[in-house]
């Protein structure tokens, strides 16, 4: 047998169980969603029936949903940016200055996530409300806000950032660890300042991590509905919460499916934009 063929067979044999599992329980369900999105609404048990129609897409793209799209993209974009701004110093510090405490520091980033996700959100709710700790402390310097910070856009972005930060830190850490620091010295020797070195040497050097991390944060944050619901209130409905409503109430499965397909399109766009860069990190 030719070596290439043997290598191909061996790799696929090892990947087969994963392929079968994902084929049945991931790909098939996603195909079903696409199918539902072209079905007709039905209030019965099946909740989506023939004949085929594009009605759900027309409804989903109705201008009435525009503010919700806009808000969702704003939340997701701001969350990704904030995760980058907070995650990069953390990842760089652990990779470059962590020494033998690297593993312990990385673990320390993950420990809070062993508590219940809902309990963490409720903790933020308590910290941010009118009589919460944040408002009280800010009150000492006169920066408090009537009624606290709950039910604001800021609260939602903060909660989302808290939830998704580890997904940004881990790929960034891998990229920072691989980055050759001597490039920074070389850049300084060649007369570049700190800012110019950061944007022209460091940032391109860790770009694969930045892209991988953003990928793990952006679209999942756009789909999250629990955080916006609990920290932003009913007024702040997002794309995810609209999808959830269509399914949980049994309201309109085709509409919910069409919106889910639109999020899948966003996934594909982001994957294509990223191309092959950063593939080694993820």
């Amino acid at each position, binding site marked *: 047998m030719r070596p290439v063929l043997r290598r191909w067979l061996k790799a696929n044999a090892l990947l087969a169980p994963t*392929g079968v599992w994902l084929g049945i329980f991931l790909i098939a*369900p996603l195909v079903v*969603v696409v199918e539902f999105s072209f079905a007709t609404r039905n209030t019965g048990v099946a909740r989506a029936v023939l004949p085929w129609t594009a009605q759900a897409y027309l409804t989903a793209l109705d201008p009435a949903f525009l503010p919700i799209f806009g808000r969702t993209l704003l939340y997701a974009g701001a969350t990704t940016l904030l995760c980058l701004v907070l995650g990069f110093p953390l990842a760089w510090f652990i990779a470059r200055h962590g020494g033998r405490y690297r593993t312990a520091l990385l673990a320390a980033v993950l420990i809070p996530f062993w508590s219940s996700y809902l309990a963490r959100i409720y903790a933020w*709710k308590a910290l941010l409300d009118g009589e919460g700790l944040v408002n009280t402390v800010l009150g000492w310097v006169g920066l408090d806000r009537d009624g606290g910070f709950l039910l604001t856009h800021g609260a939602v972005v903060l909660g989302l950032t808290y939830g998704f930060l580890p997904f940004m830190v881990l790929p960034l850490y*891998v990229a920072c660890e691989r980055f050759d620091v001597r490039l920074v010295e070389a850049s300084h020797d060649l007369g570049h300042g700190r800012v110019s070195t950061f944007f022209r040497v460091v940032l391109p050097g860790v770009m694969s991590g930045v892209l991988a991390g953003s990928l793990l944060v952006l679209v999942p944050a756009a789909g999250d509905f*629990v955080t916006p619901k609990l920290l932003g209130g009913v007024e702040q409905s997002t794309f995810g919460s609209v999808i959830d409503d269509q399914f949980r109430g049994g309201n309109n499965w085709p509409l919910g499916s069409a919106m*889910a397909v639109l*999020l899948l399109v966003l996934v594909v766009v982001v994957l294509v934009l990223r191309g092959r860069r950063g593939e080694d990190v993820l």
Partner: protein
Amino acid sequence: MNRRPWALGAVVALVFLFLYAPIAWLAIASFNSSRSLSRISGFSLQWYAELVDDTRVFDSLQLTLQLALSSAVISTVIGTLAAFGLRRAFPGRGLWTVLLSLPLVVPEVVLGVAMLGFFVKLAGVPLGFGALLFAHVAFSLSFVVVVVRSRVSGMDVRLEEAAADLGASPFVAFRTVTLPLVAPAVVAGAAFAFLLSFDDVVISSYLTGVGSTTLPVFVYAQASKRGISPEIVALSTLMVAATALLLIIGVVFASWRARRTGSAAKLAV
């Protein structure tokens, strides 16, 4: 770059403060004498006492643990195989990478409704433990593959070649050389898979059947009616404390063993 990075250190300290503030607050509030999470009125152990007595929490905790363990075992085994499959380049590897990145990138709500539609459509799969297990493995697998693969691809092939040159059979070489090298990553992947399953709210909330409510779904249903119960806050505090303790024991043990074997104090993972 030899200067101590004080400014960077300060920023990092602030980020850690951000990460730990809610957890610290949960721990404080779990000893609160009133139900409120935002106002501390006194010290009490009543929530821990109620937690121990609450059979509903205990039942769903048991189910959640069974589910998380089963999901972690299955996804670790087949995910580790897949990570080895992706070790060397072969035609079609890019396609596998895209397939494996889907569960990481597709929002949970989309996965949840997709799986609900799929299981409802296929009358053969009733909602409940089975459906939950299929789904949890499907979204945890990729995380195991990513974690194990990063270790496998960084591994020096010459170590295994050396073992073969010294007369080790492929099986012996795998058991004595390859496995010990990837073991920390496999453990990390398993822990990741366990955590993902154990804490999942969104996907599970679509797939729970009658009598098979997982703890996060139970908490979510309860919380959306009258806020989160202090018992859950107590349980979360216990979980973080247990994890931190396990990690500290692990780190201490690893450094003790490293010192004993005289090798460089290189911690695992």
